[in-house]
């Protein structure tokens, strides 16, 4: 096995082009588990932790793929409350100190905690290779169970995510607070200026998935210009539509029926919280 240690992004892209079999590693919270258990023996590891441009962000926001969760929580929470909420549910402090959104995207597990937020908030994934840069909307990024739109010579460089212009919420079901893989998860983003809603489910289909019908229903049912208290019937219908968007399986973490039920509950509750925030005229403060 080779250990490749680029110092710049350009160098990393050259290496990835020359060695498409090299597995990128940043926080190591997924890759090292596979190595420790001998589930994977790649021909090379491509260490991305020495590349400064992957660990920075700029206004807009363009967040380097190697920014650890802890910094998203501590330093970007006010601008990206939904992403910060999801990041807070990742693993444990030690895992959040190392793990990155880029890693979540690279692994593309249907249970990855940040995926529903990225979908509900119209994130765009910036990937690069020596051939150039591609901007991939999150909704086109997830192709299957642990499969994403990345080509063999590409690396995930950044996530583009606009600062929240309205309330955002995230919810996750697990057996305890720390160190759990989601049984199922849900994210909602309100865009009052656009009369739009983003909604997405995690760990409840082969890929993280947007709940389009639920989004459309809410956009027509909500009056963003003069917000009134929500009718229970609206919350219930929204929950049902979110649940219907999922196609979960029975597995060790939960049954398909439970996941469907829990998603409807989470959708109702998070909508209630988000709408209340709008009524209170508060901007989410993570």
């Amino acid at each position: 096995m080779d250990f490749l240690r680029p110092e710049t992004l350009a160098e990393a892209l050259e290496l990835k082009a020359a060695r498409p079999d090299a597995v990128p590693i940043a926080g190591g919270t997924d890759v090292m588990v596979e190595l420790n258990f001998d589930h994977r023996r790649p021909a090379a590891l491509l260490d991305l932790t020495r590349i400064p441009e992957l660990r920075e962000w700029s206004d807009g926001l363009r967040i380097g793929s190697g920014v650890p969760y802890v910094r998203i929580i501590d330093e970007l929470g006010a601008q990206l409350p939904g992403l910060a909420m999801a990041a807070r549910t990742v693993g444990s402090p030690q895992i959040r100190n190392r793990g990155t959104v880029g890693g979540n995207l690279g692994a593309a597990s249907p249970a990855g905690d940040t995926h529903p937020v990225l979908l509900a908030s119209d994130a765009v994934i910036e990937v690069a290779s020596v051939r150039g840069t591609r901007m991939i909307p999150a909704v086109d990024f997830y192709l299957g169970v642990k499969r994403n739109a990345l080509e063999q010579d590409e690396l995930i460089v950044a996530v583009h995510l606009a600062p929240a212009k309205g309330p955002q919420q995230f919810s996750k079901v697990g057996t305890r607070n720390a160190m759990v893989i989601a049984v199922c998860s849900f994210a909602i983003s309100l865009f009052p200026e656009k009369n739009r809603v983003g909604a997405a489910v995690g760990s409840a289909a082969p890929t993280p998935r947007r709940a389009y019908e639920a989004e459309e229903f809410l956009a027509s049912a909500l009056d963003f210009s003069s917000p009134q208290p929500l009718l229970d019937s609206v919350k219930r219908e929204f929950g049902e539509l979110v649940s219907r968007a999922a196609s979960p399986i029975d597995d060790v973490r939960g049954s398909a029926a439970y996941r469907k039920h829990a998603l409807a509950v989470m959708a109702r509750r998070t909508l209630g919280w988000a709408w209340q925030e709008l009524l209170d005229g508060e901007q989410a403060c993570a």
Partner: protein
Amino acid sequence: MRVNVTVNGEQRQADDVWEGESLLFVLRERLGLPGSKNACEQGECGSCTVYLDDVPVCACLVAAGQAQDRSVRTVEGLASGDQLDPVQEAFVEAGAVQCGFCTPGLVVAAHDLLNRVPSPSDPEIREALAGNLCRCTGYEKILDAVRLAASRR
């Protein structure tokens, strides 16, 4: 491959390191520092917690090559000579150590918490230790130890 890394303030060198090896293996098996414990090898238990450039991480999830030219502080590096760190003293006094396997990781995690939050609330202590499993104590004595260490700062 060869890995050069500063460990507990000392420049160390490990040779014949396999490229897929973890920092934990290097510390325990190549550098003679068995304080950090090897248990789950998947970041679940926290018993291998060390500082990497002053940030607590699971050493089992750091590739050895990622530690090149970095600074690592293990549980062995917390005491000054024979003088235990106040967190270590508090663990002994509060009876927070039973079998002792989880102790090094918990001591490092608690040490980091008190550096960041000198007087943590109980929820803050619980959150800071959420990545460390203990199967003996039921955690109450560990919480006592962290409170005791905080009260002495």
